[in-house]
């Protein structure tokens, strides 16, 4: 089995790209750290023969989901809005098409991010999301259509 140091060096760039796409540049490092520390803990139990990219991206996906859930909990609705100036918490760092992807429904968002930021195959995306390959393909397609985004070859 590859020493963890080498595994980390091989996967840090794609995982970083995934994190930036999934949660934005401002929060990417938190998800990046949690992903690789969880990977280190589980590393000796990783089954050989399975795709290393799919394995680490599945962990990253779960950590990104945790992040989205925690953010949603913090943003509890209130009955009367307090009268304070509104600051956009994440200015120009979070412009661009991936910020729009993050506004999609969870399935479409996850399918697009794992396929086009993490560079997994549709089959690997399906395994990470626990759905069929056809469903993963469809979610990605619908997400692109909703946002009028296209994949440049």
């Amino acid at each position: 089995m590859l020493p963890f140091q080498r595994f980390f060096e091989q996967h840090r760039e794609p995982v970083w790209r995934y994190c930036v796409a999934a949660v934005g540049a401002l929060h990417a490092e938190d998800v990046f750290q949690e992903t690789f520390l969880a990977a280190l803990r589980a590393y000796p139990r990783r089954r050989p023969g399975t795709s290393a990219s799919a394995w680490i991206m599945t962990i990253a996906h779960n950590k990104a989901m945790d992040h989205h859930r925690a953010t949603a909990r913090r943003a509890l609705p209130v009955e009367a809005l307090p009268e304070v100036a509104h600051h956009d918490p994440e200015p120009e760092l979070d412009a661009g098409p991936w910020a729009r992807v993050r506004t999609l429904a969870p399935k479409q968002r996850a399918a697009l991010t794992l396929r086009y930021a993490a560079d997994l195959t549709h089959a690997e995306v399906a395994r990470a999301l626990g759905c069929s390959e056809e469903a993963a393909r469809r979610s990605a397609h619908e997400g692109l259509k909703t946002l009028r985004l296209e994949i440049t070859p």
Partner: protein
Amino acid sequence: MTPLDVPAIDAGALAAASARLLTAAAAEADVVYCELDSPLGPIVAAATADGLARLAYREFNGGLDAILGALAIKLSPRIVEAPARMDTIRRELDEYFAGRRRSFDIPVDLGLAAPFGRAVLQACVRIPFGDTSNYAAVAAEAGRPRASRAAGNALGANPVPIVVPCHRVLRTGGGLGGYTGGSAVKERLLALEGVLR
């Protein structure tokens, strides 16, 4: 239509995040390692929570990846580079090569050695700086007087050369004998200790 391109990487942000990750990972890893320069060429040093587990002459052992690969199989794949955690061995080796240290204080983990090998290496540690012994005498010290060949094999497989001074063990007839870093390195160590000119 807007293109959905792969996100760009901010190299500085990733480098900083990597450094922080490796620091946190080193605290949880089973094995930490670093590369050291020495007058005998590059050395790879690796430690567990119990102590220094491996000192390897990098080129003589097939390079860094071969050394780490063997550690992944024999100890654990949870291996992380952590130069900051290897300050003690770096300092003690520097002092030794500068002629300011005659024995090592760093704790050693002989987990890579077999049981008899461990007894042989423990006997070997008792040979003082500037002195030599032979395979038969070390075998006897380790409790098996007739096992000089097995003692020779155990010394040849010494996971922590220099610190466990297997270079001080010579062939019973007086010949130099083999060495895990090559016999030229053995000669240089014996010269450093004043045994050879």
